[in-house]
Each structure stands twice: as structure tokens, then as C-alpha cells.
């Protein structure tokens, strides 16, 4: 079932949590809402679930207006960061809860409830824990039970609020790929909230990057990583180097680096910032073009070699594959010229908004 959101606003006192959100989640996709804490992603998810009400705007499920519908009538499964399992119920009863509270007319028979619960527990590979209580489970097990519980009522939409946020790295990685496989089997429209870019890039079909109550960019993981639409997205997704410079008459200049910028053809110079990913930078020894920089550190971390260089405008991070680096190693203290293969330029004003946004 598809979800459509039209110009959604939400304020908490003076704080604007959502400032006119428009979003479409196609049926069967897994969409990640990605952003720093306080960007409004959880509020958006809770409004979709009906746990919070928007000040204005509308939500459509499968083309039908669901803005005023109560949480229990939305047919939405919700998974909480801290599991929210019912402590006094066994794992079995937790998963069966949604079936047991159905009105008598549509409630399945006891035997059918048993079957459904056990098939869900098998799906999350925890059928052997049916008689246990939540306090006896590990964090990863609890979250899988919470997911089984949410799926028991066959929701048309599955909403996950930082589902792996409370787990340690190893378990988080396992559950991430497990969730992806599960989604490929079930194809239930899902929205996942996360502040972890790696999680979003790995799991989601589409990523919605949010900042300060607004959507910065929507796109596939490759799109948002390779072609960030704003400085914020650049800085939030992955590591990035930032160069300060100015632009005039269609050219941007960063102390020795020149690049055409078609958007700024005027005669008055404006301040601009250039962004380049660490793996998109080349080193030249004999070139006359490029920034002059000195090699400060070299570290090899598994398959990648990370090089830190110092230039007059600050520091630059570079990444090369181990093989490429070993073919032509750099000496610490050596002076070289560097040139980004790709440098994206934004006016400095636009980037200033980003800085305050990232802090919030």
C-alpha cells in the first residue's frame, strides 16, 4: 500500500519539527528517513502511524485520506527503538496480542492464532523462545520479537523507529541484512527511521534525507551518495573535504584549483565552498595545476589507505585502494599537488545553513 504525504506541518511550542513535508512512498518499497537527531524524522514516522497528529497537511494510504484515522484503525505495524514489549506476557502472548484484541467477529480461532504466531516466530527464527519472557531475551532477540508482533496483524505498512539503535554494532549489522532479506520476501511497504547513514545506504530502496524539518533530498542510495543535492547531504552522507574559495564570471577558484560554474556568471565575486569525497581526489607530483599540499599522515586500514594532507586552507582527507597506494607510495613530509576528480560547488550561504542544521 502506498503512502502519500502532502504539506505536513508540525510544531512543538516554538520548535518547528516538520516544515511542509511532501513525500510519496510507493507500495512495496523500503524507504529510509535519514537525518540528524531533531531533524523531524521520528515525528514524521509517528504522524504516519497516528501516534502524533499533524498541525496541518494530509496523509493518504493507498489514495485514501487517513489523516484523521486513529492509530488502531490504520493497519500500521510499528517497531520501537526500545522494543516496547509487554513484560508480563510470554513471547508467544506478545506476538499473539494483536490477534487477541481483535473483535470477536474477525478474531481467528485459538488454533489458528497458535499457527500464525508460530509461523511468525519461525520467520524471525525464534520459535524456540515462545515460552520465555522479554526480560530473558537479548536485545537483538527482543527486537525480532517486536517485529514479529508488529507483523502478526498483517499490517499494510511497517514503520520502524531506529529499530537497531539500541543494539551493539555486530548485532546491528546482522539484523540489518536480515531485515533487507525479510523485506524482499514480504514486500510490505516500510518506512525506516535512522540517523545511521550506513544503515540507510545498506537497507533502503530509497533514502529521504531530512534536516531541520525539511526534506533535503530524495533518491536511491547511489543517487544521494554520488550526487548530493545540498551541502548538508554532502556532509551528512559519508566523509567529505571542504574547500573555501570564490566564484566570478563563471569560474570558481580555490587557491590553485579552477573549475567552471555555470550558475555564477556575474562580475561580482561570491564566496563558494567546494566539496569532494576522499576517494575522488588524485595526487600529482609533477603537475602545475592543483592545490599544493604536504603529506601529514598515512594509515592503511585493511583494503584502504587513508592519507591526510595539509595545505594553506586546512586539511584534506584522501582515500586510495591499498594496491594503488602501494604502486606509488607517498612519503610523509613530501609536497605534492592534489586535484579532485570531481568537485561540487555551492554558494557559501547555502552551506552556512547546513552548519547550523548539522549541529541541531
Amino acid at each position: 500500500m502506498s503512502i502519500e504525504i502532502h504539506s505536513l506541518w508540525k510544531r512543538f511550542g516554538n520548535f518547528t519539527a516538520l516544515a511542509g513535508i511532501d513525500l510519496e512512498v510507493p507500495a512495496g518499497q523500503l524507504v529510509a528517513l535519514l537525518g540528524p537527531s531533531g531533524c523531524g524524522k521520528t515525528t514524521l514516522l509517528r504522524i504516519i502511524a497516528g501516534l502524533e497528529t499533524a498541525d496541518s497537511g494530509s496523509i493518504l494510504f493507498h489514495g485514501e485520506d487517513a489523516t484523521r484515522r486513529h492509530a488502531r484503525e490504520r493497519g500500521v505495524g510499528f517497531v520501537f527503538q526500545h522494543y516496547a514489549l509487554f513484560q508480563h506476557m510470554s513471547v508467544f502472548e506478545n506476538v499473539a496480542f494483536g490477534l487477541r484484541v481483535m473483535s470477536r467477529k474477525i478474531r481467528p480461532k485459538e488454533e489458528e492464532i497458535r499457527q500464525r504466531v508460530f509461523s511468525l516466530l519461525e520467520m524471525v527464527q525464534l520459535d524456540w523462545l515462545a515460552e520465555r519472557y522479554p526480560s530473558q531475551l537479548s536485545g537483538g532477540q527482543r527486537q525480532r520479537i517486536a517485529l514479529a508482533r508488529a507483523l502478526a496483524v498483517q499490517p499494510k505498512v511497517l514503520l520502524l523507529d531506529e529499530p537497531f539503535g539500541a543494539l551493539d554494532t555486530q548485532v546491528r549489522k546482522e539484523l540489518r541484512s536480515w531485515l533487507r532479506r525479510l523485506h524482499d520476501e514480504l514486500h510490505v511497504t516500510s518506512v525506516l527511521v535512522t540517523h545511521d547513514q550506513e544503515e540507510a545506504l545498506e537497507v533502503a530502496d530509497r533514502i529521504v534525507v531530512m534536516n531541520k524539518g525539511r526534506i533535503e533530498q530524495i533518491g536511491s542510495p547511489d543517487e544521494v551518495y554520488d550526487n548530493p543535492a545540498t551541502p548538508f547531504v554532502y556532509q551528512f552522507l559519508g566523509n567529505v573535504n571542504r574547500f573555501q574559495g570564490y566564484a566570478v564570471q563563471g569560474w570558481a577558484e580555490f587557491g590553485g584549483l579552477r573549475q567552471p560554474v555555470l550558475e555564477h556568471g556575474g562580475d561580482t565575486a561570491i564566496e563558494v565552498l567546494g566539496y569532494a569525497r576522499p576517494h575522488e581526489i588524485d595526487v600529482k607530483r609533477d603537475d602545475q595545476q592543483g592545490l599544493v599540499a604536504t603529506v601529514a599522515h598515512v594509515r592503511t586500514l585493511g583494503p584502504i589507505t587513508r592519507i591526510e594532507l595539509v595545505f594553506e586552507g586546512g586539511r584534506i582527507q584522501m582515500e586510495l585502494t591499498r594496491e594503488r597506494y602501494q604502486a606509488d607510495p607517498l612519503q610523509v613530509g613530501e609536497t605534492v599537488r592534489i586535484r579532485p576528480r570531481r568537485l561540487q560547488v555551492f554558494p557559501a550561504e547555502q552551506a552556512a545553513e547546513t552548519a547550523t542544521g548539522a549541529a541541531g
Partner: protein
Amino acid sequence: MRHRGVLPGFGPALGFSLAYLCLIVLIPLSATFIKAAGLSWQAFWETTTTPRVLASYRLTFGASLIAALVNAFFGLVVAWVLVRYRFPGKRMVDALVDLPFALPTAVAGITLASLYAPNGWLGSLLAPYGIKVAYTPLGIVVALIFIGLPFVVRTVEPVLQELEQELEEAAASLGASRWQTFYRVLLPAVMPALITGFTMAFARAIGEYGSVIFIAGNMPMVSEITPVLIVGRLEQYDYAGATAIAVVMMVISFILLLVINLFQAWRAHRELRGSV
């Protein structure tokens, strides 16, 4: 190998607890038993089973039970309101809850008696409907509710505070109505605390004397509670009779409290039966 904890050992701690309990609880109680043992079995039985005494047991335990049940219900509501809502004067209400602890019970009794007397503020409103509170068993229940309220509120409050709001949200998103969320999710979670609060209010009500004597009227067979009866015996220098009745009361109370505690332990155990 003996396992050593951080705090001073098990031995001294247990020794101290036992000695302390003996001094404060066990010795006075056994003195009662010893005094009562002065009576022959026949005399003991006759003293403790006269119709007047039996009526007082019924009244004491019956009124206490009703008061504790009422407190369990309204105490839960008050605790809920104090935990979940913000409203002007909340701190005042919070402080008011503890007042029955601090107020001399006689003051409470006199105040309630004058309020509920047929010519009192509340009593005069109820009188046209034929409802009499003061000098009836109903008055006793009212007094016992008054003194027992803080127990339930103060035991349930911290548990409600700990209860995540997400539990309610999870239940709602799974399709549960408000009522289903209450009795399937919230009530079971606060139940142990609620039973503890109920037990304390109940135990306190059984032993209550000060507030009841003023509002009860203390009519034999109608509104005379067992503690009043015991004091009456003492005033007549019938020490053996007084202690005999006291022993019966104590035994009943002990059995009731034991049963409630066993029930609690059974519940707790049942919840962990899945553990290996």
C-alpha cells in the same frame, strides 16, 4: 570458596535483622500470646466467640476489606492522574495525598464525624436521601478509606512512572482499544504494586483505632470494631480477655497477609516460569 560481596557479610546482617525484629515485633507479640495463655482453652473459646465479639470481627475485617478495595481503585486513579497529567496545583494535590499519614488519626476521626453527622456539612446533604454515614458501619469505611489512601497512591506511583508510554502506543498500533490497553497491558504491569498497596491499606485499616472511634458510634453488634472492644476490656481490667481477642485478631491478620504475600510470590514465579 566463599563469595564475598561488597557490603559487610550475610552473617552480621541477618543476625542484626533477627535481633531487631525480636525486640520490636516478636517480643511484644509473644507477650500477648503468653498473657492469653493464662486462660483455659474453654474460657479462651468463650471469650473470643461471643456474638458481640464475632460481630466486631466481621465489621473490622469487612470494613477494612471494602475500604482497601475502594482505595485500590481510587488510589490507582489518583496515582495515574499525578503521573500522567500536568495541571496547576499538582504539587498541592501531591502533598495532600500524604496528609492522612501525618494527621493525628483522632483529628481525622473528629473531622469526619462532624462533617458526616446528620447536621454536618456533608451529612445534612445526604440525610434527605436517608443515607447515614456517621455512627454507622458506613462511617467506619469512610474513615478507613481516608487513612489508607496514601498507601496505594505511593506504591503504585513509581511503577506507573517507570511504565513507558510506548507500551500504550504499541498496544494501540496493534489494534487494541483503550479499555483493552488498560486491562491487558497497564493493569497487569501495575498489579504487583497495586496488591502491595492494597495489602498495606488493608493491614493499616484492620489495626486502625483513633479515627474510627469518633465516627463509629461504637454500638455493640452494629458499629463496634474489635480494637474498641479490646480497649473496652482493658478499661474493665479484663486483661486476659483483651489479649485473647487480640490474639485471635492477630492470627487472622497474619493468615490474611500471608495469603496475599504467597499470592504475590506465585504471580512473580509464574512470570518467570520460562527461565531455565
